[in-house]
């Protein structure tokens, strides 16, 4: 489908994005919010990355390598076809790998490109609703390039028992490639769903996804983002969630891949009694950089938020956790907690932790804390004194560190996959051999 055939609301969004991007420009390294992301490196490389459609003209077929990357997600579903799943290659739907039939009636779980051919419905109201494309350079860029993505709508009172899977494959095997996927998740009142977004791939790629989440009153969403693109990939992901009264979001941001990866998560608690639990796990080694940003906006009374981010860094990797909690004047009886723990496996790895609280109401309970350490020497010796090799001992302890986050993922195959990932990561790590 060509851009001109898109419905008006999509064309408008693209224009607004393009206009905002021109106005805002890319972030400067001096920008406080961006000081831990190498924007300069990104900016220098950006022109090399082109949308796959521009290169091949048509829908590209996934390369062998890309198919292998998808297959490596194995237990999560793609190969076994156990989950409802939408698979995108370089931002375009691969309907051969996708499966979206058999969901309860009224549930929409569709590729945006297919919906663009229908009369505008709820999607027209939801897409771009959170407005980031006017103020955030990379969200604006995503809007300007909008081609495809996912729309999920779960109507009032509908509970989806099975998790839904969205896979984005960045296939850079034929040269550097850019994609700007958009995911819109909308849950009605008392609706419940579990969604996994997986980002994988091969070769050089720039992936700039935007996820918009709107939860109606008392809706429950469990949302996992698995970011495991190739070591040459650049990933700038932005997720924004808007929670109605009593709505609950459980977010898991799991980051293992990429040359530079940035995961930005904004949660707006805009209904009384809404709650969010934000878990994060990031692993980086070599020259990788992984940058996690959270913003939790307590705008109404009786809202709760718990953040727990854990980082494991090896080699010369750099990691950042920049987490902010704002309690607005109307945010009485806020209960907000933020915790960050990091494990450094080498002397050259580095972590920047910046927990911040901005509180404009006195009736609140807020805590935050960050700690960074190394593997416990006593525990290492204990394990070795029981015959485990040094490498085994390090693996066991590192996996244990990660397990606090991994164990809270409700999707069993994702848990299993991530455990394998961490173990594989450790096995490839020079210090753990």
């Amino acid at each position, binding site marked *: 489908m060509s851009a001109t055939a898109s419905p008006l609301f999509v064309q408008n969004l693209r224009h607004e994005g393009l206009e905002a991007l021109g106005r805002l420009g890319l972030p400067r390294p001096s920008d406080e919010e961006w000081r831990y992301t190498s924007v300069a490196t990104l900016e220098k490389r950006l022109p090399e990355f082109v949308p796959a459609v521009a290169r091949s003209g048509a829908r590209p077929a996934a390369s062998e390598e890309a198919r292998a990357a998808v297959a490596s997600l194995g237990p999560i579903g793609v190969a076994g076809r156990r989950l409802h799943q939408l698979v995108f290659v370089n931002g375009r739907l691969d309907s051969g790998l996708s499966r979206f039939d058999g969901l309860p009636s009224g549930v929409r779980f569709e590729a945006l490109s297919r919906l663009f051919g229908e009369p505008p419905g709820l999607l027209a109201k939801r897409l771009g609703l959170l407005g980031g494309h006017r103020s955030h350079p990379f969200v604006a860029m995503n809007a300007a390039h909008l081609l495809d993505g996912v729309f999920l709508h779960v109507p009032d009172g509908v509970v989806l028992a099975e998790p839904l899977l969205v896979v984005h494959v960045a296939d850079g095997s034929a040269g550097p490639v850019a994609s700007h996927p958009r995911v819109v998740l909308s849950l009605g009142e008392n609706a419940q769903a579990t969604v996994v977004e997986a980002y994988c791939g091969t070769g050089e790629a720039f992936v700039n996804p935007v996820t918009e989440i709107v939860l109606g009153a008392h809706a429950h969403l469990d949302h996992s983002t698995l970011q495991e693109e190739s070591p040459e990939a650049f990933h700038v992901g932005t997720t924004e969630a808007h929670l109605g009264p009593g709505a609950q979001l459980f977010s898991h941001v799991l980051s293992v891949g990429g040359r530079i990866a940035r995961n930005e998560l904004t949660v707006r608690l805009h209904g009384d009694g809404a709650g969010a639990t934000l878990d994060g796990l990031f692993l980086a080694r070599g020259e990788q950089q992984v940058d996690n940003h959270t913003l939790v906006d307590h705008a109404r009374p009786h809202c709760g938020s718990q953040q727990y981010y854990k980082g494991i860094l090896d080699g010369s990797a750099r990691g950042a956790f920049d987490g902010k909690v704002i309690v607005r004047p109307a945010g009485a009886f806020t209960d907000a907690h933020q915790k960050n723990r990091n494990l450094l496996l080498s002397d050259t790895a580095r972590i920047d932790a910046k927990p911040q609280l901005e509180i404009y109401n006195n009736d609140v309970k807020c805590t935050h804390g960050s700690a960074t350490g190394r593997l416990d*020497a006593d525990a290492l010796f204990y394990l070795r004194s029981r015959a485990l090799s040094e490498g085994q001992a390090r693996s066991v302890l590192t996996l244990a560190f990660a397990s606090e986050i991994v164990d809270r993922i409700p999707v069993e195959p994702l848990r299993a996959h991530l455990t394998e990932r961490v173990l594989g990561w450790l096995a490839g790590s020079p210090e753990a051999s």
Partner: protein
Amino acid sequence: MNVTTTILEIRGLKARIAEDGTEILKGVDLTVNAGEVHAIMGPNGSGKSTLAHVLSGREGYEVTDGTVLYKGKDLLSMPPEERAREGVFLSFQYPVEIPGVANTYFLRMALNAVRKHRGLPEVDAMDFLALVEEKAALVEMEDALLSRNVNEGFSGGEKKRNEIFQMAVLDPTLAILDETDSGLDIDALRVVASGVNSLRSADRAMLLITHYQRLLNYITPDVIHVLSDGRIVRTGDKSLALLLEEKGYGWLEAEAPVGAGKAS
């Protein structure tokens, strides 16, 4: 005819704290044969745990003199895991808590590492379960503790039971028990002691570090040594423990020049 096999032979062992150079072991001589149980007693800070740590390969100590032969091999040149695989087991005075690592998961890894070293195949899940049940019964360890994380939130007594349980599963040749009796109530002491006694065998040797004669009522040692200020200042049979119970260590120190004064 009886052939004695020497399990452990320590000669003139001197060791210091790597960090600040403080000498803790000042020339230890000790020979332990297969089938024997030796008790090491001595005042706080005399170097008992240091000796146990040096024997098991803990970092942070520097051996400045002496040799340690284990089954005729140079023990000090082996990394800790190799010592363990060769059959050295240390029951820690302060067992370490390891959050996030399940007891049996870890123990199975440990057992397989030992078996691999001995040229045996990995233990299968059913056999491991049977072994775990058998050995847990030996120290009356509750099932719940088996699946919990290693020592995490265990009471002091539960930790010590866990040590003996692990020892039973790993089947060592030389067991070094560092104050395994401390912090145990009477019943736990009896259970742990009977666990240890059931592991006594003609081809195994044990080193019991203890402060209390009480333990020696349950586990009768063949030899008792007194370690004082980094040296073994007295060696005797089990009557020595009773004497120490009665008179303390002060009288030994007064006599110390006799045993410890020889030029090194």
